[in-house]
């Protein structure tokens, strides 16, 4: 009787699956151990018997042989069919994927275009909405630059004015930044590289000129004439412009505020007589954007 480890080695040796060294060891054992030799012989005969058994099992009789061709043919056809179907499906899949990618590309391109035009449109609409309905609060003002905080229906809004002749306004309404340039005669909305005229006229400039005339008490004869009247607790400045246009600014004892509408745009003006050139502040220093009188 041999142990199971040797038995396993004999099996592997029979199959030529041992390393050279293990093979030499097994051969040594077989030379010196009769039981191992007998076990190996049994293994060899068992293996031979099994091969014989499988040979017989796989030996097809005449009927099976003739049927073999028929089965091979059937399997070949089935295999060819599946390849054909896969190949057809592959082509179809390629077309589907290609079509899908094309559609997706077109969709993305279209959406981007739409988004771009919508974002310009929204920006413009946002500015116009602000012009019509929003409420502003001046938080600080320094020379050449101003900041405006607005709390409106669309959240907190920040507007910054950078001084200069062509004054640049930048705003952020919680969703996007927009800018517009205020010139002497035009207000231009900037959107990326695109610029769009919002107002052909800049009424603020006209009011500014009129008010300067009031301060100088000389009048700006060509355009506006200012007359100052004091009565009781209030001081009134009447501005007379071309085509019989008349604006009356009525300040309280402290110099303000006076609301005025010029060309459909509302302004709030505060008079600071002691400040010389700074005699007036226009709290609608964001030109073209009306301030609701009620809010003031």
């Amino acid at each position: 009787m041999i142990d199971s480890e040797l038995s396993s080695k004999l099996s592997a040796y029979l199959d030529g699956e041992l390393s050279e060294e293990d093979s030499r060891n097994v051969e040594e054992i077989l030379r010196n151990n009769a039981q191992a030799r007998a076990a190996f012989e049994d293994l060899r005969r068992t293996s031979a018997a099994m091969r014989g058994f499988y040979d017989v099992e796989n030996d097809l009789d005449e009927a099976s042989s003739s049927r073999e061709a028929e089965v091979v043919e059937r399997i070949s056809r089935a295999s060819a069919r599946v390849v054909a179907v896969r190949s057809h499906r592959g082509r179809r899949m390629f077309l589907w994927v290609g079509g899908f990618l094309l559609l997706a590309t077109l969709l993305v391109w279209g959406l981007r275009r739409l988004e771009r035009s919508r974002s310009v449109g929204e920006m413009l609409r946002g500015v116009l909405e602000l012009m019509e309905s929003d409420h502003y609060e001046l938080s600080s003002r320094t020379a050449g630059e101003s900041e405006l905080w607005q709390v409106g229906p669309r959240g907190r809004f920040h507007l910054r004015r950078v001084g200069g002749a062509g004054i640049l306004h930048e705003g952020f309404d919680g969703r996007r930044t927009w800018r517009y340039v205020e010139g002497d005669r035009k207000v231009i909305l900037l959107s990326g590289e695109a610029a769009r005229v919002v107002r052909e006229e800049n009424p603020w400039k006209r009011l500014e000129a009129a008010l300067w005339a009031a301060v100088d008490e000389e009048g700006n004869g060509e355009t506006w004439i200012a007359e100052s009247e004091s009565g009781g607790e209030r001081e009134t400045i009447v501005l007379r412009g071309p085509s019989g246009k008349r604006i009356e600014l009525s300040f309280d004892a402290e110099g303000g505020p006076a609301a005025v509408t010029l060309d459909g745009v509302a302004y709030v003006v505060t008079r600071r007589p002691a400040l010389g050139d700074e005699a007036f502040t226009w709290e609608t220093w964001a030109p073209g954007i009306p301030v609701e009188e009620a809010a003031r």
Partner: protein
Amino acid sequence: MEPNDATTDDDRDWELFLQADPGDQNAFRELVGRHFRAAIGFCTQVLNDPQLAEDVVQKGFVKLFGARDRYSRQARFRTLLFRVLLRLCINELQRKKVARPFTDLEDEESEPIQSRIKDGRGELPEEEVERKELGEMIRAAVMTLNPKHRAALYLREYEQLAYADVATALDATLSEVKIWIHRGRQAVQQRLRPYLERGERVR
């Protein structure tokens, strides 16, 4: 078969497998024909059901060709075929429970073999009867093994595959294959003990 022949045969197998065009039935016919008997023998041994073996072989080829794009030449084609077939056989065995239980085999064995093996023309010659009897003993022993062990034994003894190829075909490790083959032989050897002790020629 010489190694070079095996390589050449395997080259041809892969060439046929990867390039067979649905319009050219001959390529499919040649490849299926080259492996049909080996495939049927393998499945019959694992399933112990020749009819089911035929169906599984067809499924095996269809499965291989259906997923042709996913295969690359990493093993012998026949090894790959055995691997696919074994999975299908195990699925079939699990699904249909076709493996004959050992108790059934014992019952069959208890019936005298001579009374069962007849060709319709009378008693078989004694040598033929003994050969059949030996075959039934081996079959009974083999059927006590689980399907993977049966497959390992068949691939080694009949297909003469190296342990490494058997491991690839059965998705097993070399150690597992070594143990399976050894245990399979032991099971058969035990069943053949009376023959071996008589020292008879057992082929």
